[in-house]
């Protein structure tokens, strides 16, 4: 079959070209089905328990998707009448935001007061005409004393105020809906910022987060992919010394990428912040296949073979190694299917398919392309480079007794460091400090207080149970407990509303700022208040339909995921200890990310042995040696250990992007070992001793390994430029591991072989047991 195709390809290159192009375009046509999703939900599978709790709470209480706009005046006082007027203008105009359900600010806060024995419920600033210095002072006094506002919609010192826009997206075309909301609010704040240069506007909330996911993905597509292309073309030109050969590789790469994206489209996948970089990664990995084939052809041409002969022979000697390295790489990426995060699974599957497509197109099309293009013979590698590798071989052989213990010490130390890494997933920190979203959120946190929230839904167990004084007391005590925790910056609770209403209903007597004592009293106060609220400002975000459950919203300082999980646990324990009769659930986007990091790490660690097993089995098969297959385990494992050890020194935080690096990089670095051990084995099988076999391996593949490592490191380094840390961290750590892998393969592996593969020195080596278990 292979021979048939190859002969055909060389005889009818244009037909082959046409066939393969038709195939590629049929695949690529699926790209019409591709769409982009930038919402945070793509990180969670429908079965994810935290996602289910989140959806349940969103259904029970009104949705909490929001866009937060914060304003800081240069004067430092938001209660300046001029600033309040802008806040009111923004509040009123924000109701025009697409999909908005409600808008909350200090100006439309439903302030309650006892007036002539009636309950007055009114916007804190109802009419602009009322606004003078005295009114502003009055608003300031009320707002800064209102627990529902301070730390949420106005900072303690009154230097920042926020307008919260709650939206309910129809979720038909979520990406479009998010950008509609974001752009509408941005247009409004841009206009106000232009009219009031002394005011600074910041944007936060779930919508801003989702928008940032899309924006950064778009930036990656617009800047990283073209950059990667440039890098690849430059490297190819340098390595192959032939513009047309480089063109052939570029054609293969382009076909591979469009076919990969097309197949993803046919499979019904979507693009996301994680998968927009699939082209970059596939490009990096695809280059190697073509380069091996072209370099071999050029070498054989220099040896004096005719072009068809050279191509034929190059294909013959490269098919197996290129297939094995592609399959191991694909296996590494396929283990991402064990991830808890759907988009990381997509990343793994798309890249695995891309790698195999690269192999297929290289084998099917490259021979025909080389036939058609008048490619140069490349250049003979200067001999001094070869001697550099020979000198390195000599050096390793001379020092191998020292290299082994040194590597062992470094590995053990790295292993210890590796275990000191902490899993941490904060959606906010996924964005580089340079991004606008991160800067906004950092200012919000610093001035206003916490921007990450946890919502606790507490169920009284019966309809109208929220009005039961025992239950309200429990809620009030729970809120009080939460406020004692140092991480908590604000607690929003219905018990504060009850206290305020009780005071209002008793002539604003501060002595009555306490919970009502009777259920009917509480129920009727609440009914009275609810019936006084205007459109959109009801209590549905705090109470469920039949008043059986209430939601307590807690704002937190930006916490690492571990501390956030600890806080959730503390709150749950408190409730279970004091009020075991009430069921409680906790949820929020921040909490979901905190959980997903842990869950994903656990599942990826569990999947690692499987990846090791499959890849090692492939090595045993391809090297046709149990012994070398087992030996290869060490140089394949150690780089990840050292890489993660170095990571502890660099950052120490493991996020979703990094949790998949170990199994992903395993499939890539294994290639070095395969090439080195394959050449080593050939030499041993020919009867040379260990030292000579190592010299042969260095001489024949040392330089090639260096080159492919450079290509891979460049490729993954491009990802470092992403402003999205899941991508940039992944690129950085993978690049580091690939460099370490090369060092291990060139220093440690030969030293290890010298020490432990010495016994068979004679020509009989090739026939001894253990080396001949061919399958």
């Amino acid at each position, binding site marked *: 079959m292979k021979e048939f195709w190859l002969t055909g390809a060389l005889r009818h290159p244009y037909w082959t070209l046409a066939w393969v192009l038709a195939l590629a375009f049929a695949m690529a046509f699926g790209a019409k089905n591709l769409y982009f999703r930038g919402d945070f939900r793509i990180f969670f599978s429908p079965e994810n328990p935290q996602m289910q709790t989140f959806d349940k709470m969103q259904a029970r209480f009104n949705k909490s998707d929001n866009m937060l706009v914060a304003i800081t005046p240069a004067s430092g006082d938001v209660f300046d009448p001029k600033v309040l007027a802008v806040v009111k203008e923004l509040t009123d105009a924000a109701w025009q935001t697409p999909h908005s359900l409600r808008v909350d600010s200090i100006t439309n806060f439903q302030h309650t007061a006892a007036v002539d024995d009636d309950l007055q419920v009114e916007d804190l600033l109802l009419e602009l005409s009322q606004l003078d210095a005295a009114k502003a002072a009055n608003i300031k006094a009320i707002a800064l004393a209102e627990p529902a506002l301070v730390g949420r919609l106005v900072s303690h010192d009154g230097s920042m105020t926020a307008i919260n826009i709650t939206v309910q997206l129809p979720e038909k075309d979520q990406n479009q809906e998010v950008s509609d909301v974001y752009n509408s609010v941005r247009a409004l704040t841009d206009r106000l910022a232009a009219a009031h240069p002394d005011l600074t506007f910041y944007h936060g909330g779930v919508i801003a987060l989702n928008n940032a996911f899309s924006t950064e993905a778009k930036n990656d597509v617009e800047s990283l992919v073209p950059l990667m292309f440039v890098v690849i073309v430059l490297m190819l030109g340098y390595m192959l010394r032939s513009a047309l050969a480089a063109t052939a590789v570029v054609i293969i790469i382009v076909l591979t990428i469009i076919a990969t994206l097309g197949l993803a489209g046919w499979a019904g996948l979507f693009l996301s912040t994680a998968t927009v970089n699939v082209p970059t990664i596939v490009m990096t990995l695809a280059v190697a296949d073509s380069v091996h084939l072209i370099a071999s052809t050029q070498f054989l041409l220099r040896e004096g073979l005719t072009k068809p002969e050279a191509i034929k022979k190059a294909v013959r000697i490269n098919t197996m190694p290129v297939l094995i390295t592609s399959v191991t790489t694909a296996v590494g990426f396929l283990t991402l299917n064990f991830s808890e995060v759907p988009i990381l699974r997509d990343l793994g599957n798309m890249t695995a398919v891309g790698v195999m497509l690269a192999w297929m197109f290289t084998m099917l099309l490259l021979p025909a392309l080389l036939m058609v293009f008048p490619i140069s013979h490349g250049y003979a590698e200067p001999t001094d480079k070869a001697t550099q590798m020979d000198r390195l071989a000599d050096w390793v052989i001379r020092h191998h007794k020292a290299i082994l213990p040194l590597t062992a010490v470094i590995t053990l130390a790295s292993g210890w460091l590796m275990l000191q890494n902490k899993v941490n997933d904060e959606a906010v920190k996924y964005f580089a400090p340079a991004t606008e979203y991160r800067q906004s959120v950092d200012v919000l946190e610093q001035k206003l207080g916490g921007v990450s929230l946890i919502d606790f839904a507490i169920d009284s167990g019966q309809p109208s149970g929220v009005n039961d004084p025992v239950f309200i007391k429990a809620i009030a005590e729970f809120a009080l407990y939460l406020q004692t925790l140092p991480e908590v910056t604000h607690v929003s609770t219905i018990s504060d509303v009850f206290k305020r209403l009780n005071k209002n209903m008793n002539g604003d007597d501060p002595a009555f700022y306490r919970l009502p004592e009777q259920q009917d009293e509480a129920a009727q106060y609440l009914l009275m208040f609810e019936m006084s609220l205007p459109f959109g400002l009801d209590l549905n975000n705090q109470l469920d*339909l039949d*008043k059986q459950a209430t939601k307590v919203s807690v704002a937190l300082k930006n916490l690492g995921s571990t501390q956030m999980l600890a806080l959730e646990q503390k709150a749950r324990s408190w409730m279970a200890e004091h009020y075991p009769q009430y069921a409680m659930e906790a949820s929020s986007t921040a909490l979901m990310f905190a959980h997903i990091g842990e869950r994903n790490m656990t599942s990826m660690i569990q999947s690692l042995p499987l990846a090791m097993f499959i890849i090692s089995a492939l090595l045993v098969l391809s090297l046709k040696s149990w012994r070398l297959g087992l030996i290869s385990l060490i140089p394949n494992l150690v780089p990840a250990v050292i890489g993660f050890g170095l990571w502890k020194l660099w950052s120490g935080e493991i996020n979703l992007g990094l949790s998949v690096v170990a199994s992903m990089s395993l499939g890539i670095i294994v290639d070095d070992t395969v090439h080195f051990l394959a050449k080593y084995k050939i030499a041993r099988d020919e009867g040379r001793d260990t030292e000579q076999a190592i010299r042969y391996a260095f001489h024949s593949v040392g330089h090639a390994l260096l080159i492919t490592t450079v290509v891979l490191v460049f490729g993954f380094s491009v990802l470092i430029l992403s402003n999205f840390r899941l991508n940039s961290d992944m690129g950085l750590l993978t690049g580091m591991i690939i460099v370490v892998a090369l060092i291990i393969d060139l220093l440690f592996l030969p030293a290890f072989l010298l020490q432990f593969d010495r016994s068979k020195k004679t020509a009989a080596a090739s026939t001894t047991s253990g080396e001949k278990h061919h399958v």
Partner: protein
Amino acid sequence: MFNRKMMGTALLCCSLGFTSLPLLADDGGKGLTIAQERKQRDEGWADSESKTTMVLRNAQGAESKREIRTLSLEIKDEGDKGLTIFDEPKDVRGTAFLNHSHVGKPDDQWLYLPAVKRVKRIASRNKSGPFMGSEFAYEDLSSFELEKFKFNYLRDETMQDLPVFVVEQTPTDEFTGYSKTIAWIDQKDYKVLKVEYYDKKNALLKTLQMLDYQLYLNKFWRPLKLSMVNHQTGKSTDLLVHEIQFGKGRTEADFDTNALMRAK
């Protein structure tokens, strides 16, 4: 009398890119004629009493029920008066809501709280707010008065095999929660079959269907089921009217604030 406010609202909306609000009805007054006929056909019912179950549903279909009784009194050339007494949930039993609709000025509203035996006035700015946590706003339940809207006849249609007028109604009150409503009115009996409510950003907010119309006193059509669906939140509320009685001889004395405390 509301022209100045209307103009302001219209200008604001135009400046924000919404131009669908008509300043002047361009239907030759047909919308207003239909509304006048609708109003006129419903005159003379004097007073009524009814029992109603309110069924609230969230987007997932979970239900919560409320029981209320309503007393209504027709007032010629002025808004009607209504008294609503809550029976369920138990902890608000006996709470009574009194409403005096007005033409040309905001309604007056009071609530009687039996737990503290006090009557409290409620500000009328809340007319856009939900009634008892339902999908009905006060303004959806308040009596139909010509002065509360500007009318614009849109087209004829067929609904439930009946020819209907489709009329756009633009609220004149500044505290309304709507930019407009669109009503489907049966051409024979002037029964309102369906109403669509558009929010201030001109997006479809709710749809009300009025079903199971019954004829009372040989003249007055009343729906026994009112079904309101909120398209933005997926929540809905059904009002199921169990019995309507007319001619109980109620007077204005039954609808003043003192009567609130006697209501049971």
